């Protein structure tokens, strides 16, 4: 039965695959706003050595791999705002923010290009699938910088945007997420 099922699982078509290891210097930034200010919080220097793979299948470009970031590493450049964001994102109950890569709409080439792809973002214990806009910039020595961005909402993850003073101060539901990964091709 297992052999029969495995016949239906997509396999790489051979030759058209790339494997990257995540190098030092990755980052994730969230930009949002309240009715009294804007905020920008980031996790810098992500460098957990995970591997991302991209391979062409018969009908699309699949991508595998994921990154896991510590919500406690968010820095909003202001101690109280940092603490507030961590509380909002339920860092104690759900300490990790995960991005799982699923596919791309075209195979990465040797030149700079913009592609789209699906990811699953897991935040505050809720996983949601999104289409992400990527910019892929090739660098020296078989490295690339993969920048992904996407507008999301707190409510996508069942998070109620913080409100203070009886709702007089309200955080807007929309957030812009941008992550940047420095990747080195594996031989």
């Amino acid at each position: 039965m297992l052999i029969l099922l495995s016949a239906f699982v997509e396999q790489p078509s051979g030759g058209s695959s790339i494997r990257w290891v995540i190098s030092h210097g990755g980052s994730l930034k969230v930009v949002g706003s309240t009715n009294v200010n804007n905020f920008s919080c980031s996790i810098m220097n992500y460098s957990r050595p995970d591997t991302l793979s991209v391979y062409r299948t018969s009908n699309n470009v699949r991508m595998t791999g994921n990154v896991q970031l510590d919500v406690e590493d968010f820095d909003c450049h202001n101690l109280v705002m940092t603490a507030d964001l961590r509380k909002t994102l339920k860092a104690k109950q759900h300490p990790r923010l995960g991005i799982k890569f699923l596919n791309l709409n075209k195979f990465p080439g040797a030149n700079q290009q913009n592609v789209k792809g699906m990811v699953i973002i897991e935040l505050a214990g809720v996983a949601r699938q999104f289409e992400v806009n990527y910019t892929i910039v090739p660098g020296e020595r078989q490295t690339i910088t993969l920048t992904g961005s996407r507008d999301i909402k707190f409510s996508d993850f069942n998070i109620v945007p913080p409100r203070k003073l009886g709702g007089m101060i309200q955080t807007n539901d929309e957030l812009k997420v941008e992550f940047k990964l420095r990747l080195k091709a594996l031989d």
Partner: protein
Amino acid sequence: MRKVLTTGLLAGSVLFVLSYGGLYLAVKFFPWIFVEYNNPLFNSDGSRDLLFYLHAFIFSLALSWFWERFKSLFHGSFLIRGAEFGLVYGVVSLLPVMWITFSAMDITPFMVSSWFIYGLAQAIVAGLVFAKTNP
């Protein structure tokens, strides 16, 4: 007792409009003042909004009782009596509370000063209402 309740509710209504109206306008026109409220010290899930908006009435009913007990000590026109009543409340109650709040919580001098001025202004308004309606 009835007079305490009616003047307390009247002052509460006046303060409700002035306090929250003023707060709304301040947030709209001077948003930078409120940036510090993005702070986990402040309730953020809306579960205490009703308590927040009831404050004007809790405050006014308590002060109404205080006015009834001690109004004979305040002399002069209703403006003088109301203002002095507010100042007495500010010095006797508000100042020590703000002092201990600032000493124990991670808040800025600006924030605690704004609370003191806000509370003092509320007490003076309430005092004016009491001096006029329950002399």
